[in-house]
C-alpha cells in the first residue's frame, strides 16, 4: 500500500535560515506528489506539486524516484512561512490523496 512519511513533527528555525521539510513515500508505480500548507486559522491549500516544477513563495521540491523522496526546501525562511505542512501522494488513476502526518514549521524572528 502507498504510504507517505514525514519523519519530523516539528521544525523551528530563525528567519533567514534554510529549511528542508522531509517527505518520503512508498509506492511501486508512478506517483504524483504534492505539498499542502495550512497557515494559522486558514484552510488547507495546495502549495506546490511536482509536475509543475515551479517555485511557490520561494519553496521548491524535487521528486527523487531513486530515494523515493519529495523534500520541500527554501533557502531563506520567513516568519510568514510558519505553518503546518503536509506531503501528499496521488497514485496513478486514483482521485484520492494519501497524506503524511504533517510537520509544524516555526520561523522565529
Amino acid at each position, binding site marked *: 500500500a502507498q504510504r507517505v512519511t514525514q519523519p519530523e*513533527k516539528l521544525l523551528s528555525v530563525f528567519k533567514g535560515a534554510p529549511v528542508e521539510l522531509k517527505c518520503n513515500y512508498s509506492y511501486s508505480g508512478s506517483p504524483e506528489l504534492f505539498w499542502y500548507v495550512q497557515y494559522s486559522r486558514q484552510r*488547507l491549500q*495546495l502549495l506546490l506539486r511536482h509536475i509543475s516544477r515551479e517555485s511557490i513563495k520561494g519553496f521548491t521540491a524535487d521528486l527523487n524516484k531513486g530515494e523515493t523522496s519529495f523534500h520541500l526546501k527554501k533557502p531563506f525562511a520567513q516568519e510568514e512561512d510558519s505553518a503546518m505542512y503536509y506531503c501528499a501522494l496521488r497514485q496513478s488513476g486514483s*482521485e484520492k490523496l494519501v*497524506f*503524511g502526518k504533517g510537520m509544524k514549521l516555526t520561523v522565529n524572528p
Partner: protein
Amino acid sequence: DVKVTQSSRYLVKRTGEKVFLECVQDMDHENMFWYRQDPGLGLRLIYFSYDVKMKEKGDIPEGYSVSREKKERFSLILESASTNQTSMYLCASSPGGAGNNEQFFGPGTRLTVL
C-alpha cells in the same frame, strides 16, 4: 474562486446523537472528500464521492456514512456519535479528470462529542 463551505465551524454533541456535517462546493467539481484531521495523525480519508450517489470508503469509514444526493453537496453522518470521534473534520472537492486534481478544502468543522 473555488469555494468549499461547511455548515458549522464548531459543533458540540452528546454521545449517541446522530450528527450531520454538511459540505457544499460551488465549482461543479466531480469529486468530494471527507477527512478527519488529528494532531500527530495528519489527514485521514473517511469517505469520498466521485459522482452523485456514488461513494467509496476511505481509510477510516467505521462509524461514519455519507450522502451525495446533489453534485454540489456532500454530507457526513455520524450515526451514533462517540467521544473518539471528537476531531476536526475537513471537506474537500476536486475537478476530477486527468491532469487536474488539486483538492480545495473547506474551513473545517471542529466537532466535540461529550
